[in-house]
């Protein structure tokens, strides 16, 4: 009889130890999951800053010319790719009519500025008259490509878009947006990530939304 009691006590202690270890494991797992969820939230995803001239009525803009983008990346076509998406999204959003890209390049060729970033206010005004537009979209691509962090690669894109008034040559809207990195679910559970093209579309759409919402 005392022997049975002794084994009962031993079993009870074992069970207690097992429960404690189980609780500790669950606690550690919970802590790790929380860290994995909250730590990536500090810097990932998409960030944007934009400026809009409050004293300008954007209703007068009926026709826009999208100038070639400055390409500040190692990808030689990054500027052209972003420009095509900007044209497509401007048309699809119904914000304004867009001049045929070739017409813009032909007008620029005739005018002969050294680069788009070197366009003066007077040249912008003259270009506006030639193309019969009320505004220009200018911009640059700062980052374009896949970035590899650890064993995971994900698209990273950074763009700046500006709207210049063709009448005065002044900037009436500008926005900068960066997107990059794989999300928590993609990194840890292999969930779907955006392709580079999808990321371009998302970033351009989100950037233009700051203008269309206004």
């Amino acid at each position: 009889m005392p022997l049975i009691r002794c084994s009962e006590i031993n079993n009870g202690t074992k069970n207690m130890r097992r429960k404690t270890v189980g609780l500790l494991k669950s606690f550690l797992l919970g802590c790790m999951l929380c860290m994995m969820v909250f730590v990536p939230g500090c810097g990932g995803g998409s960030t944007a800053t934009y400026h809009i001239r409050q004293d300008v009525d954007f209703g007068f803009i009926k026709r826009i010319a999208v100038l070639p983008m400055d390409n500040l990346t190692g990808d030689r076509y990054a500027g052209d790719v972003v420009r095509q998406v900007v044209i497509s999204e401007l048309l699809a959003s119904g914000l304004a009519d867009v001049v045929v890209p070739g017409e813009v390049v032909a007008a620029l060729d005739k005018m002969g500025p050294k680069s788009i970033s070197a366009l003066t206010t007077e040249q912008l005004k003259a270009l506006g008259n030639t193309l019969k537009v009320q505004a220009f979209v200018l911009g640059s691509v700062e980052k374009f490509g896949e970035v590899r962090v650890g064993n995971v690669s994900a698209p990273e894109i950074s763009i700046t878009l500006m709207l210049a008034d063709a009448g005065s040559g002044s900037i009436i809207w500008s926005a900068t947006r960066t997107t990059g990195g794989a999300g928590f679910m993609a990194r840890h559970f292999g969930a779907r990530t955006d392709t580079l093209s999808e990321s371009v579309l998302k970033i351009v759409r989100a950037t233009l939304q700051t203008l269309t919402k206004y």
Partner: protein
Amino acid sequence: MLDFMNSTEHRSNRGHAGACIALFLVLSCLLFSLDGCGVRPKYYTRPDAGAGKIRKIAVLPIENFTSDGLAAERIRKLVIAEILTKGVDVVEPGEVSSVLIDMKIKSLNSLSIKDIREMSKTLGVEVLMLGSVEAYGISNGISTTYPEVSIHLTLLDGATGNVIWSAWNTSEGPSFWTRHFGSEGPTLSETARKVVRNALNTLL
């Protein structure tokens, strides 16, 4: 007493297994539902242009913004084939090239409205299709490779040079089954055909 404790332990183990299965199912459902979160491309059609009445199109050479030198030509062939299957006539590509040479147009990047009008008149068409390929190749995902194709097609009115239709379309990344179970995905050619077809479906 021992029997009772064993049965309690057994029940607890069963509970753990049940929780694990539930967690697995929840995660699977989450991954499966997150699979469809891709961005949807939009398109534009000029309301007064009568894009539905198009009978004949001249497809100009496509601009190539990829590292694959033949990507643009492949996409152009697909565009022509898809337009023809929709019952719309297409100008012979050689005829278009010949007109471009005659007009001394070196780059489509600088095609002006005046050039568009002249081309339209010479080729005897009301509309011209311009386009570009932004991506054409095999991209690397986190755990797998997949075909990626992105195109932008625009239809111009031959009389005014205005854009009457514009569509940008891209393929999606690898599917749930490809990523997690290694199932075979579509080839690059199949992906390109699908992207072109989906883009043209918004017009014709």
